[in-house]
């Protein structure tokens, strides 16, 4: 299909841009390994000096959870998508994108896919290998069902994060600048998404808010599948599907509004 092949060009472009800056790649792996190490040493220290269950959860499970949450940061859509769209709006080039045969969300998503592939190959895989080599990261038996569910759940969380970042980008129509909104979103993601520590450890009150927020669908839900942590919601994947649907529809309307405004205002 024409649209897809054009989208593929974006994908390749983002991949190539990343390849061009070489030393960076090595430093990124180093950085990722250090991020993993911090969590490893912290939780190892906690595990050595306390009983092995926190709130009924094994310390080893928590360690796996936090390690993977630090790695997910490298591939979950975020800043890239937000500035992709907000720059187009602020510079007024969004009306040009109207004329393109590719839907703007498709090109933004392809750009993210490029980053996903690149960061998986050059950051995730090497840093996971290095971490296993140098740190005795606990291995938890994960059966094939759980692994498949993780795959599905991650795909959904990836798309939700993409839709949310995209939406923040569109917000630039009103705010002129989306740095602040972006910061706000990141903070909510930390608190209610469980990107720092699993939501299961929270006091009940915060747990309740987290459960009903879309943020836990991004980090908490996929990570529970591979770290053997109970996901205390019934049908977590169904909840993810709902959030994805909600944000996609919201974006659909926002984008239509944004385009109309951009066309009226001119470039």
């Amino acid at each position, binding site marked *: 299909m024409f649209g897809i092949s054009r989208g593929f060009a974006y994908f390749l472009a983002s991949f190539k841009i990343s*390849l*061009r800056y*070489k030393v960076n*790649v*090595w430093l990124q792996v180093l950085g990722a390994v250090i991020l993993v190490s911090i969590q490893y040493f912290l939780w190892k220290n906690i595990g050595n000096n306390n009983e092995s269950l926190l709130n009924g959860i094994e310390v080893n499970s928590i360690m796996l959870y936090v390690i993977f949450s630090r790695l997910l940061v490298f591939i979950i859509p975020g800043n890239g998508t937000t500035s992709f769209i907000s720059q187009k709006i602020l510079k007024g080039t969004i009306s040009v994108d109207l004329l393109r045969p590719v839907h703007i969300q498709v090109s933004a998503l392809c750009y993210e896919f490029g980053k996903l592939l690149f960061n998986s190959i050059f950051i995730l895989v090497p840093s996971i290998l290095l971490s296993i080599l140098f740190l005795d990261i606990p291995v938890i038996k994960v059966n094939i069902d759980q692994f498949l569910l993780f795959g599905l759940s991650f795909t959904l969380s990836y798309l939700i994060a993409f839709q949310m970042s995209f939406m923040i980008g569109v917000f630039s129509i009103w705010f002129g600048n989306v740095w602040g909104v972006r910061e706000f979103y990141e903070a909510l993601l930390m608190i209610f998404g469980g990107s720092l520590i699993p939501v299961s450890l929270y006091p009940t009150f915060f747990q309740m808010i987290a459960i009903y927020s879309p943020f836990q669908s991004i980090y908490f839900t996929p990570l529970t599948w591979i770290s053997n942590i109970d996901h205390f919601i019934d049908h977590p994947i169904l909840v993810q599907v709902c959030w994805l649907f909600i944000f996609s529809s919201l974006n659909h309307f926002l984008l239509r509004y944004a385009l109309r405004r951009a066309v009226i205002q001119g470039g």
Partner: protein
Amino acid sequence: MNRIICVKNVSKVYRIPKSEKGFFKGIKSLVKPNIVEKVALKDVSFEISEGEVVAYIGPNGAGKSTTIKLLTGLLLPTSGHISVKGQDPFQYRKQLAQMTGVLMGQRSNLWWDLPLQDSYDLLRVIYNLDKKTYIEWSRYLIETMGIEDLLSQPVRMLSLGQRMKAEIVSIFIPKPEIVYLDEPTIGLDVVTKQKVIEFLMHINKQFHTTIILTTHDLQDVEKLCKRMILIDKSILKYDGTVSNFIKKYGNMKRVMIKSDSDNVPQLPNDFTLSEQFIDGWEFIYDQSRYDKRDVLAMIAKLENVTSVSFKDPDLSLIIKNMFREDFEHVWDQ
């Protein structure tokens, strides 16, 4: 007159890590990058006197921006010697910056979110100008350029033309002795362009400011500059007056043939098709080889021709054709 800029046998070579095509080569280059040398300037020499307005022209990538960076001390030449006001610009960069104005494409002196006046006031502090002189001088510049109305507007609200006018005024705020302008008229409409050119001419006449400008717009050159330096493929190709240049290389003539037919008229090989129109073609030929009457005779043999007209060459035409392979012989003369 005082020589203000002296460039002697200057060369500049960039060393660039080459990016590899293909996935695995790309990975390989992560480990061992290939370094490629790129010559930006090759043995270039010229001198510029105080108060001159010099056009520095050539195609993209010819080395124009590199020259400006060398003259302002941003870069160190690979070999050769440069002196500006008798000093090495690289060593005395900050001292020379005090009396130099530079306009570089896409790089703004102005604060995006704030009213224009704030940017100018900030420049006063950066260049450590006396407050009273600054107020008088900036008012003079603003009035000369005619941008009084823009002062209270945020820079991001200005149109491209307004921004360029504001930008050029900002260059002159510190009352520079030498000014380098990289493409000052690019993308401007005719009226704004005229205003900018008048402004530059005025300042040059009144204050003997030395102005060096690079441009693609050769009409600007004909209006503003007496002298031009032409550079192509890192080599200096011409240094002299604009009128001499036209005289020397100007024996080309343009002929415009209008026709009902869709086929390109068949003319001898040394007629070059320079432009195509909806209802005709423009060719260039060498006046020394063909008489006007010969040309008319040739055209008369063609079918469907509706009209023929002759035009004199201008600078852009000459240069455009010089950079063509088939006019290479012009350089050899």
